[in-house]
């Protein structure tokens, strides 16, 4: 029996790797993508391009603007001289933020009245807008504190001391790179599995396979092993790049990572084979691959937290294997987690893997064309 399985596995590897184009596709793009995506995936705003429209001639407004000028997260792109210049600049996305200081700013400030600072922000990207508003607020807050301290005024009765744990500089790259490992691993399993059965169906070789002495379980193992092996190799390469190149700290246990990876691959391969065995043509297989992969990525909590989703969609994410693997990756990388914390993420992937693989095996024989 092992001989038969071995022969089948050998044949599957040949089918995948014999074609030089296919070999290329499996190995090179995921690594290049990790490098590019690793740099691209960030919510950190380094330089907010801003413009100034200052109608005030006093020293106070100059001091405030100097504070923005000196802040590393701001870079001034224009100095405006009329209200009419604001809209074209923001519309064309040349400035994200416009600071508008009215003519009575310094006078109000010196008289002890609140001096309004109007801040116009391009809200097309709501997240960037929110972050830049926070940056503006922190510059204004420190200006206010200095002003209060310098003049011996009564400050607020309470002040905030904020700190972030686990990631003190709030570098979002650390958060996304483990996620990219999960996504690319999913893509690789889809590459290997989603079209295999469909291709054999289309070419008629699958019927031949069914009439050989191979049992269904054996065919299933033969189809599962390549995806599994290539997934492990690819994920290991990606892991090396993530830790050695991007210097993401790997604080947790490596065995926990590999057990998580193995179960994730099992569920990914299962989903891929299920799609493939449902499809009559490769076109349908490709459609199925996208219909699984795209929601699996978007609902995994990779970029937008699951907690922000409505309850019904949150329930739906429970059948997404990537959801569990992402939690494992982040906990193992950033929080140094071991098996004890991860148990609740491991068993759902095992269940998804078992169910999809069994269904795929059953469909091998029961869906004939």
């Amino acid at each position: 029996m092992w001989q038969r399985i071995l022969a089948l596995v050998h044949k599957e590897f040949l089918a995948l790797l014999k074609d030089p184009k296919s070999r290329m596709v499996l190995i090179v793009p995921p690594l290049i993508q990790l490098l590019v995506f690793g740099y691209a995936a960030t919510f950190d705003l380094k330089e907010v391009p801003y413009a100034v429209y200052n109608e005030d001639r006093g020293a106070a407004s100059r001091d405030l603007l100097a504070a923005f000028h000196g802040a590393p997260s701001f870079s001034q792109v224009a100095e405006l001289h009329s209200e009419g210049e604001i809209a074209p600049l923001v519309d064309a996305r040349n400035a994200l933020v416009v600071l508008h200081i009215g003519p009575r700013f310094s006078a109000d400030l010196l008289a002890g009245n609140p001096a309004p600072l109007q801040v116009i922000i391009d809200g097309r990207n709501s997240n960037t807008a929110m972050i830049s508003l926070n940056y503006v607020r922190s510059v204004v807050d420190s200006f206010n504190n200095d002003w209060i301290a310098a003049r011996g005024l009564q400050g607020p009765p309470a002040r905030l001391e904020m700190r972030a744990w686990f990631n003190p500089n709030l570098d979002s790259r650390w958060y996304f790179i483990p996620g990219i490992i999960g996504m690319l691993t999913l893509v690789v399993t889809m590459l290997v599995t989603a079209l295999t059965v469909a291709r054999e169906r289309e070419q008629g070789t699958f019927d031949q396979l069914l009439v050989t002495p191979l049992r269904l379980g054996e065919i299933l193992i033969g189809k599962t092993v390549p995806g599994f092996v290539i997934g492990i190799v690819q994920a290991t390469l990606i892991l090396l790049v993530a830790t050695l190149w991007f210097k993401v700290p790997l604080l947790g246990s490596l065995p926990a990572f590999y057990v998580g990876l193995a179960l994730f691959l099992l569920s990914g391969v299962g989903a891929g084979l299920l799609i493939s065995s449902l499809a009559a043509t490769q076109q349908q297989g490709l459609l199925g691959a996208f219909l699984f992969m795209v929601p699996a990525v978007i609902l995994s909590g990779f970029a937008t937290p699951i907690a922000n989703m409505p309850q019904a969609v949150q329930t739906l994410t429970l059948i997404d294997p990537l959801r569990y693997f992402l939690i494992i990756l982040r906990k193992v990388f950033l929080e140094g987690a071991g098996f004890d914390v991860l148990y609740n993420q491991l068993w759902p992937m095992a269940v998804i893997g078992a169910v999809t693989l069994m269904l795929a095996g059953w469909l091998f024989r029961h869906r004939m064309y």
Partner: protein
Amino acid sequence: MTGERGGSVMRLRGLVRKEFLQIVRDPSSIAIAFLMPIFLLVLFGYGVSLDADHVPLAVVAEAPSQDSADFTASLQGSHYFKPRILASMSEAELALREGEVDGIIRLRPDFSRRMRQADGAPIQVVVDGVDANTARLVMGYVEGAWGSWLAAKAAGNGQSLTTPVDLQPRIWFNSELRSRNYLVPGLVAIIMTLIGALLTALVMAREWERGTMEALMVTPVSMTEVLLGKLFAYFVLGTGGMLLTVGLSVWLFEVPLRGSFWVLWACSSLFLLAALGMGLTISTLARSQFVAGQVAIIATFLPAFLLSGFIFDIGSMPAPVQVVTHLIVARYFVTIVQTLFLAGDVWPVILPNAAALAVMAAIFLTITWRKSRKRLD
């Protein structure tokens, strides 16, 4: 001459009819064009959001007093938070570690006393930094709650708060900062990328693989006609999908469409040509459906998702990666739809991006055309 041209139109009509028949016979193309946009847009329109609401927070008042109760009440009144009162810092730390809360607010035992001193009482705020973006949001929300608590307190005492510079933000185009208004137009672009590439990624390879391309070669049709026939059929299908996604965005998700529909239609058509062209290029270069399918999986979704500015701001990426994003067709369309939906017909944004789409479409279609000469390998 005229007879020749009439023959060409007739042949083209025949080819388009053949493509439509193939589309109808294998319903997966129709599913790609019509079911996929509905399914994905509804799922993501509801599922993808960056707005955190009811953030679970641990509140530790180490010596409860009227002041600390006051502050806690102001957190409870805000829909941004779901505060949980815990007795000690160690309990709160455990809750943070286990992910039950996203942050801790600690009021030390001397909170009340220090509030009456000149430099004010410190409020310690700890957030879980693993998800840096949510951490920043939570910090902003806490700051907002703190500010309004101070203002209410001052007003209660008949004073006004000392605020030298009064920050008055105006968020243009999306005054409530609804992340859906920003994400749904981008989703239209992502979904259209998938539809365009998926529709055509396999069609050329399929003809080669099944040998029907050779059958077409012995007929009088030229390769250009074969390509035009495919392009036309899938363009019609793709336009249907586009109208569906735009309609859903406006009516179901209530994203304002401030620009003109016709500009959107024109830009979408250009984009669709580029996306279909990309699929045809993949299909032509790969020659086998299996490889073409693999390339489509690798080259379409993740690059469009991560490098188009749909979710990660291109301006925040390092310069070399910003250069790479120029190779992504979706990038230009995401910029156009975000502006068209939220800001309106801003020509300085639309024209250069539309021109880039036209160039990309031309490149892809030229590659396809040059690589699919009538020849046998």
